[in-house]
Structure formats: structure tokens, C-alpha cells
């Protein structure tokens, strides 16, 4: 029994001691996976947050006060995400939460944030449910999953002759893959495009050749591929090409189709593959271009979607903190920040941000979802190892090309 009490005591002491750090900085909490299979993503966000925070603090912080990010590891486990969200809110006394990385963890964090009346600004998790449950303390900068195919839909509708005659859809059976597949299948059906293959695969599939043989037999005009995991995106494309699937266009949905590895690892096989993403980076935009340059200089790495999301979300938070009237009373301050977020209207490296309530393509009723989400969707294409935006025209860096 004694042992029991001692352990409990030890646990509570750790909690209390870690809460007593850096009293005057404005604290932002971010649950991220820092260990386990998702750790590389946690690390990407950590780098991005730190860069934004250094920049802001170097320019004098927010209304003269420094800002600080507190990252807690949730190991990509849902119960731990709830645990660390709880800890960040009640022990570390952060003013606002961001991060989350995967949707399951984001839902746990959102649920805790809503209950404990703390704003949570989502930067990357894409499940529609996160902003479709009426949680009014939850905001999202990035587009929900069902928006991913938006640019692709515009492209096939608006460009003459681009409408597919038939499609094969191959997607992972995660929430991410299924959401996008459902959105695009519904859209294609409304256009009377026949779906000649509809295949859901488990994440981390080691061999796509059997599936691709089946796809080849169906002989689709377009091959649509959805992948939440980068490895699946690359392997799937490789195996499709090796098997000899020859549609008019390969279209990928998901981060993996837009990362540099896609081209370096696939070499010539990546040529002319389309990537329809919620965000593909618009290098024509000066803020984005500057971020790319500075990030490259600071870390020697080329940033992608995750880094831009993490970097710009800190700017959105800093903007809200600047406008909110902070009194030192935690509850009042959190509410003030929430009010400030409701009136956010700004431009970041990620694009335009303004939160509102609207209806998504799959019928979801969003609360505090970035209203510019549909405009963030971009269709890009791999050309000579470079991913270039091709549609819509405003963001285009080059003209689209169909493979011969």
C-alpha cells in the first residue's frame, strides 16, 4: 500500500514540477508523435513551429511578450493524445492547442479541448469529423479530407476532353483514403463516369502488383490512387508502372504523391503523374517562396505540406494572441483568443485563412473550418523531377500535359 502511495506521489510531483516553467511567455501546446512510427512527422512539425516562434520572438514577440511552444509526445496513440492534451491544458496551462498529426489523435484532443474550453487550432489532421461535430472551440486551418480532390474535379470539368471515360480507384482503407475515395467516387458518378475498379488496400502494403494486375485487366482511362502513407504512394505508383497499367492519367491523392522522394525514388516513372492535394504549395506566392528559402537555409531540408502548415499556424495563433485582450485570467484569456480566432482574416505561407461554418462536398456541416479550403486544393504534375502546379490557372507554374 505504501508503495502505491509513493508512486502516486512521484507521479503527481513530476506533474507539478514541470508546470512551473517559464511563467511569463505565452504558451501554445502541441501534442505530436515524437516516438514510434509517426515520429518523423512530429519532428517536422517541431522544426516548423520552432522556426516560426524564433522569427516572431526576434521581432519582439506578441505585444511585447515572448511566445513559447510546449510539445508533448502522444506516440500516435489516442488515449495518450487525450492524456497529454489534458496535461497541457490543466498543468502546463497553455492558452491554445495546435498539432495532433493524425485524425484519431486530433479527435481526442478536440474532445478534451471542447470540454475544458480551450481553443484548438488544427494544422494538419484532415478527418472531416474534427470540424464537423459542432465543437465551437475547435478551428482548422487546413482543408478537410473531402476537399483533397477538389482541384481534380475542377480540372476534369473545366478542361475540354479531360473528363475520364472510366476510372479505377485504389485507396487505403484508412479514414483518409476512404474519405477521399468516397468524395471523388460520388462526384464521378454524378458525371456518369464508370468506376471499373474499386480497391481498398491495407496501409503498408508490401506488394501492389496483384492489385495492379487487376487494375490493368480493367483497363481504366484514369487511375486514381489515394495513400495516407508516403511509402504506399511511391510503391503503388512503381508497381502500377511496372505491371504496365497505361491509363491516360495517373492521379495521386495524399501527401506522399507530392514529396521530393516521389521523384527521386521513382526517377522517370514519376513523369507526368498528377498530384491533387489540399495544398501543393504555390511558389508564386511571396510568403510561401520566402518560407521555402528560409527553411532551406535554416535546416538544409526542403519543406513540404507539413512544415508549411506548422509554420503558418503559429502565425495565425500569434495574430489571434495580438488581437485578444489578455488579462492573465486563464479562462477569460482562452475565451478571448477564441473570439479573436473567429475574426481571423489573414494571409500566411499556407494561403488565406478565415474561419466559418459551411457545408462540405460529402454533406458535412463544418464549424470554424477555414472557408478558403476549397481554393487551397491544387492539381500539380511531376515534370522532370519537379512538382509543378498546373491547375487552377492562377496557381499554375506550367501547362498540364497528358501522357502520350
Amino acid at each position, binding site marked *: 500500500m505504501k508503495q502505491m502511495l509513493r508512486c502516486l506521489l512521484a507521479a503527481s510531483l513530476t506533474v507539478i514540477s514541470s508546470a512551473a516553467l517559464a511563467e511569463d511567455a505565452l504558451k501554445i501546446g502541441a501534442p505530436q508523435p515524437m516516438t514510434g512510427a509517426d*515520429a518523423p512527422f512530429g519532428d517536422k512539425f517541431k522544426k516548423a513551429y520552432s522556426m516560426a516562434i524564433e522569427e516572431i520572438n526576434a521581432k519582439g514577440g506578441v505585444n511585447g511578450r515572448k511566445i513559447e511552444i510546449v510539445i508533448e509526445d502522444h506516440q500516435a496513440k489516442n488515449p495518450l493524445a487525450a492524456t497529454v492534451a489534458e496535461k497541457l491544458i490543466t498543468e502546463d496551462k497553455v492558452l491554445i492547442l495546435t498539432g495532433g498529426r493524425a485524425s484519431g489523435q486530433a479527435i481526442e484532443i478536440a474532445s478534451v479541448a471542447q470540454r475544458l474550453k480551450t481553443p484548438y487550432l488544427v494544422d494538419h489532421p484532415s478527418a472531416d469529423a474534427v470540424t464537423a461535430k459542432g465543437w465551437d472551440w475547435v478551428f482548422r486551418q487546413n482543408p478537410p479530407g473531402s476537399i483533397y480532390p477538389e482541384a481534380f474535379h475542377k480540372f476534369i470539368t473545366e478542361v475540354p476532353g479531360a473528363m475520364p471515360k472510366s476510372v479505377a480507384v485504389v485507396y487505403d482503407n484508412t479514414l483518409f483514403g476512404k474519405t477521399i475515395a468516397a468524395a471523388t467516387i460520388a462526384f464521378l458518378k454524378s458525371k456518369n463516369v464508370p468506376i471499373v475498379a474499386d480497391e481498398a488496400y491495407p496501409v503498408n502494403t508490401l506488394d501492389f502488383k*496483384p492489385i495492379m*494486375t*487487376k487494375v490493368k485487366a480493367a483497363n481504366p482511362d484514369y487511375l486514381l490512387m489515394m495513400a495516407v502513407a508516403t511509402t504506399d504512394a511511391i510503391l503503388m505508383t512503381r508497381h502500377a508502372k511496372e505491371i504496365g497499367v497505361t491509363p491516360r492519367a495517373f492521379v495521386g491523392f495524399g501527401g506522399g504523391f507530392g514529396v521530393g522522394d516521389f521523384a527521386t525514388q521513382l526517377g522517370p516513372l514519376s513523369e507526368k503523374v498528377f498530384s491533387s492535394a489540399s495544398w501543393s504549395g504555390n511558389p508564386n506566392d511571396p510568403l510561401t517562396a520566402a518560407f521555402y528559402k528560409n527553411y532551406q537555409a535554416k535546416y538544409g531540408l526542403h519543406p513540404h505540406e507539413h512544415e508549411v502548415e506548422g509554420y503558418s499556424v503559429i502565425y495565425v495563433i500569434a495574430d489571434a494572441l495580438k488581437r485578444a485582450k489578455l488579462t492573465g485570467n486563464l479562462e477569460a484569456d482562452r475565451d478571448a483568443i477564441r473570439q479573436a480566432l473567429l475574426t481571423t482574416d489573414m494571409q500566411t505561407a499556407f494561403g488565406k485563412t478565415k474561419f466559418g461554418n459551411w457545408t462540405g462536398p460529402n454533406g458535412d456541416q463544418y464549424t470554424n473550418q477555414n472557408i478558403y479550403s476549397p481554393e487551397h486544393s491544387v492539381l500539380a504534375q511531376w515534370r522532370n523531377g519537379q512538382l509543378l502546379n498546373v491547375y487552377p490557372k492562377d496557381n499554375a507554374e506550367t501547362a498540364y500535359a497528358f501522357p502520350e
Partner: protein
Amino acid sequence: MEMFLQSLVSGVLTGTLYAMIAVGLTIVFGVMRIINMAHGEMVMLGMFGAYWSYSLLHLDPFLSLLLWMPAMFAFGMVVYRFLLRKIIPGGELNSLLYTAGLSLLIANLALLLWTGDYRNINLSYGMLPARPFGISVSVPLAIAFALAMVITTLLSLFLSRTDTGRAIRATAQNPEAAALMGIEVGRIDMITFGLGTALAGASGVLLAPSLYLYPTVGEILIVKCFVIVVLGGLGSIPGAIAGGVLLGLVESLGSVYISVAYKDGIGFVLFLLVLLFRPKGLFGVGRS
């Protein structure tokens, strides 16, 4: 027909590589009665070995087998000598959980050292597949397949033709009797664990050009590996080979003719069915 042949070839190729990982696990179990949960991490170390010798020394991954197999053999012996030896008498459950702890330790150390980024080896001859009879065969996978066959053959020669090999087989059949016959069971255990680790490392090296490598890749391999080993009969080398090829085939044919979404499920159902009719696996005789 092409669809069938393609899935058949795919299934056999991946199945053989599964089998090779499983062989290492099964001989360790056969001799020491340890279910080594860290076996997947040994594969991961092999993959990273191949990756580093390729990217730093420009050593062809298949050639680096000559470097990494002995290195992993030594590593396995060290792990046995300093970490495992005292645990084995504690029983199957304890050694299983102990190696589970070891697997967490190794995977997370690797994560700290090498970060969790996905890496791969791009071989100049691996970009485009060979196309015998119109079937697409990835070149690195085909080389890996051939080398896996060679290694497995050498292994069975070693076990049947050498004194040490025969001592390993005797210990697997009956450690008490082997000890009475003057076999130093401790030494045999150490060599066996080294061998199992070397085989895991070798499969890692062979897989490296075909798969992505990251510190936690062991997780997805180990469950498959268990299925194979149990399917074939714990401790049985022919069983592990048959189980591996069978699983490869079932996964590949199943995902074409039944459902990709249930691909892994088909493997598990097969596994249960086999066990229901042969409770000790396909090739299992084993001691009770």
C-alpha cells in the same frame, strides 16, 4: 491468365523473403524455446546495415551480405551472452516479454540515432523490371529470391553435414539428452541465436533494395513472421519455408480473387484453419 501468373510469381517472390525471415525465428525457437519478439528489429538492423554500406561506401547491397551476415552473427552471440542467457530458464512467457522489451529498446535507439525518416536504396539496375513471358519481375527482388535460396540451402547443409549443425538439431529435439551426450547446450544456444540473428540480418539486407526502411519496420514484419512460423510448425525449417511461400501466395492470390481489404485477414483465417486441423502446424511434430 496473365493476372493469375503475375499474382503467382509475386506471391512466390515475396513469400520466399517472408520465409527467410521466418527461418531465423524458427530455429531460435526450436533450440531455445524463445519466441524472439526482437527478431523484426534484427531484420531492421540488417536493412540499415545495407543502407549505410551502400550510401557511405557505395557497396552493392547484395555484396554487403558478406559483411553484414558475419556482423549480425557476432551481434546475436553478444546479445545472447550478455542479455538473454540468464532469462531462458525463466520460461517461454518471460523470455517473450523480455525480447519484447528488447525490441522496444532497439527500435527506439534506432529512431534516436537515425530518425524515423523513410529511406530506400535506389539501384541503377532496379529501376525497371525484367519481363520474362510478359510477367513483371522486379530485378532486386529476383536477386534477393535467388540469394535466399542459396542461403537456405547452405543452412540446411550446415545443419546436416557439420558437427555443430548436428548438435544444434540434437538440442532442438531434446536438450536434456543432448546435454547427456556431452553437447554444451549453452554454447549451442549461443551459436543458434547468432545464426538466427544472422539470418534475420541477411533477410534485412536482401529486402533493403525492395522495401522502405525505417526504425519501426520490424513491427509489420514480425506479425507476418509469427503467422508463418506457427503455420509451418514452430521449430521446423521446412515448415517455415512452406509457411512463408504459402502466406505469400495466399496474400497475393487472395487480394486479386477475394478482396484486398481482407488480404491480411485471409492469411489469419488460413492460419486458424490449418491450426484447427493440425494443431502443431503443417510440419510440426515437436516435443510436447
